[in-house]
């Protein structure tokens, strides 16, 4: 299949007073898998429906393979966009058999019957549903229905595949299995894919790039690892994984390190990214500037001897929960309540603990 490149330029959509999508710019390269991740109501579905052509934009443009398919003035009807879509509620037609569901798009294209049969069978086996073509959707499990929906979308060889929370109606274990399968298919067929979810782990598995959306805006678009390690905003940091958010002010800068005063009992030293991990754009630091810092709980060392003597704090334990593989602890250091994860054998029962936060564990937010 030839795959297309998708571009959104300044795309906006309002419903009455609600701005569902707010000046979104995004490019999905040919063969790339991009996941829209964000909380409920942030505009993920609306973005997808704009691309599909079910919703017309108030502003901005959409290009598929360089051809403009939507603007505030003009939109190309859905059926002429050559896309495939998988819906959250599957939308498998209950009055048609599995085969008829999958064959529908091929019949619309006017393919000869022999080809329709062959391609349908091939699509069925692509989603591991061989032999179930004669069934009606009511005779299938949720997971199987979702596979049918996937096969139905893929069989017509769309140039772009859209998926809106395709796994959210499945149970946890099936969801886990299916996300790998979808990723696998995407890689194998080199699909250009725009995938919507509010589940961050799903996003991590499926995405080449994750786009975090926050009330209609794109907060950050980056590979999954960067989204986790190098979040741009407070929203991204707190939405993806757990994070301690600490406010501070830069006191001194030298040798690729910054000394920062926070609400903790003493200043901390933060390694400034450089070389392999360049500072995020616009995050030029200077002495006296207020900054937001994040520290992931698993990067904090609890108890034990400190390393180089820097960034060692002592605090009182507010809460301690045993999680099996580790302890989840909240330690109060100065004014800051620090969430940290302590190995199960390294957790003293005392009320006061030493905490070490390596200089590399801190991340300075851009805004």
């Amino acid at each position, binding site marked *: 299949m030839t795959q297309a490149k998708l571009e959104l330029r300044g795309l906006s959509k309002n419903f009455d007073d609600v701005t569902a999508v707010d000046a979104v710019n995004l490019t999905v390269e040919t063969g790339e898998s991009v996941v829209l991740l964000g909380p409920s109501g942030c505009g993920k579905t609306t973005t997808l429906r704009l691309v599909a052509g079910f919703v017309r934009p108030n502003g901005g443009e959409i290009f598929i393979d360089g051809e403009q398919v939507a603007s505030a003035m003009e939109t190309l009807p859905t059926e002429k966009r050559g896309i495939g*879509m998988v819906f959250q509620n599957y939308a498998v037609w209950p009055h048609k058999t599995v085969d008829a569901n999958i064959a529908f798009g091929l019949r619309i294209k006017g393919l000869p019957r022999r080809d329709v049969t062959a391609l349908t069978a091939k699509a069925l086996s692509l989603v591991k549903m061989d032999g179930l073509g004669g069934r009606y959707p009511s005779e299938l499990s949720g997971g199987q229905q979702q596979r049918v929906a996937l096969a139905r979308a893929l069989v017509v060889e769309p140039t772009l595949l859209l998926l809106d929370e395709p796994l959210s109606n499945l149970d946890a274990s099936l969801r886990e299995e299916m996300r790998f399968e979808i990723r696998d298919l995407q890689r194998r067929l080199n699909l250009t894919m725009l995938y919507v979810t509010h589940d961050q782990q799903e996003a991590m598995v499926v995405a080449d790039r994750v786009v975090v959306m926050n009330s209609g805006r794109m907060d950050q678009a980056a590979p999954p690892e960067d989204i986790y390690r190098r979040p741009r905003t407070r929203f991204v940091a707190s939405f993806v994984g757990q994070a301690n958010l600490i406010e501070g002010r830069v006191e001194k800068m030298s040798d690729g390190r910054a000394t920062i005063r926070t609400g903790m009992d003493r200043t901390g030293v933060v390694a400034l990214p450089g070389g392999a991990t360049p500072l995020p754009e616009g995050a030029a630091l200077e002495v006296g500037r207020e900054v937001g810092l994040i520290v992931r709980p698993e990067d904090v060392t609890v108890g034990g001897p400190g390393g180089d003597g820097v960034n060692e704090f002592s605090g009182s334990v507010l809460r301690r929960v045993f999680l099996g593989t580790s302890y989840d602890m909240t330690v109060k250091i100065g004014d800051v309540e620090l969430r940290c994860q302590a190995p199960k054998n390294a957790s003293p029962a005392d009320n006061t603990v030493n905490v070490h936060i390596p200089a590399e564990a801190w991340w300075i937010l851009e805004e």
Partner: protein
Amino acid sequence: MADDSLAPSLVGRLVRRAASGVSELRHTLRNEPIKFAILIGAAILLATLVGWPLGTLFWKGFQVKGDGPLTLDNYISVFQEGGLIDALENSLYISTWTTLFSLILAVPMAWAVARTDMPFKTLITAASAATFVVPSFIVVISWIFLLGPNEGGITLFLESIGLKLPFRIFSREGLIFVLTFHLYPLIFHTLTSAMANMDASYEEAAGAVGAGKLRTLWSITLPLMLPALVSGVILVFLDSLALFGAPRAIGLSGRFHVLTTKIYVLFKHPPRFELAAAAALPLMAFTVVALWLQKNILGRKRFTTVSGRAGAVRPIELGRWKWAMLAFCLAVVFVSLALPVSTLVVSSFLSSWGEPISWENLTVESYAIIADSPDVYSAVSNGLRLSFSAATVCVLLAVAIVWLVERTEIPGRGLLSFLAMVPFAFPSVALAVGLILIFIHPPFDIYGTLWIIFVGYVVKRIAFAYIFARNALKQLAPEMEEAARVLGAGWLRTMGEITLPLLKGGLAAAWVLIFSISLRELTMSILFYLPGTETMAVIVFNYFEDGTFEVASAISVVILLISFVSVYLVKSIIGKGVQEI
């Protein structure tokens, strides 16, 4: 402060919505001309069929005399001249008492069925639903058989034991009696469904503080049921005002008129349609007031007592009283259904009306007459053709309108929805007057043909189809259609292959319902028919007015059979819930 900022933002929002709707319209016209043509065509058709006649009716109703100033005096004098004041008085008298007596029957029955441990509840519910399947012009024939002044079965029986009926059948009181037993199910059904949904904890709480059963009923149950009660009352009042068949049959011999029968006379000999329009005006006014009440007063309070604990309601134990209650319910059901229907069947086999019932007097002669009669044959054929096409057109038109309302942002959707629903409440006679005012003039002079009856059926029944189609479409996720569009199917193909097949159940139910109701429709048919365009109900009525009661009964039995079979069909298509219609 809040108001200052609210008003402009509201206006702005409306303007934005309209702009986006218009842009969708433009866009559809350019990219999907077939979809545009079908949807806009349907909208125009609906506006023509419903909006135009109703608008004309309101307009003409106020212009009773072409000459003379448009004053209240003028209006009143026209009313008096036509005998309309008396008719209005009679209508109000009859509807008021019918409503009161219906309450007396329906409230205890509904309570017993919904909240107590009385046995045979299903039977009572089914029987009172079936009551409604028998049209009023057929019920009334039975009652004249039974209560007629000289030969009536019950009259004779009472005379033989030295008693007298408390009222004459050919009087306003007689009509009230017939209508009460015909219409009480409307209150009964609104109440039972509301009570079944009521949270029993209210009643339990009352019981816990020591209130007796009657006291609880009076001070807790009834007030909570008030919204349902009021809407049932409105239904009975409006329906008794709008009925034509029974009032005509009784009023003819009883020498009195109600509004609907007056309109009938003004239609026929000689036709004075302007006066008919004036007579229709009070009917319209009551309907408008009722719709307003329904929407503004009841709309909000309606569901306050529904708590989702419907399954947990514990029936109230009546003890020995449950047999008394059952006797009451059975008596009502007997009088309203079993007695009239069996009388009708028996009299259809009588060789001559008024003879005692014995084997020698029983014959199938009446059925032979109707089987041989070319009039009956042509009426059946007319009825079938009219009902078939009306049901089909209603369903197709309704689907297009519903899709337009539910799936697009085109401006004017609210108005379309209103137009589709409003004939539901308007009396057939009023609609008929509105239609004739338009369809007697060129270019649409179709009066006297089957076409005008067809148009009347469509206008009156479009609301049924609309409600069924709307409920069905609301349950159909838009993604079902979108999935087809993404795969390359155009709008028409998506409708044909996905939407219509998935709405099949609801649409089939609407179709059967409209078909069967149209097949026995009396009011519009009798107002519009000219020789050659009779329908089955018209034939029944003409035989009845000629005094050929046995033949009228035989055709009625046939109509009843068709009605019950089609209700059974509707029920099996859509499961339960048909009573709410």
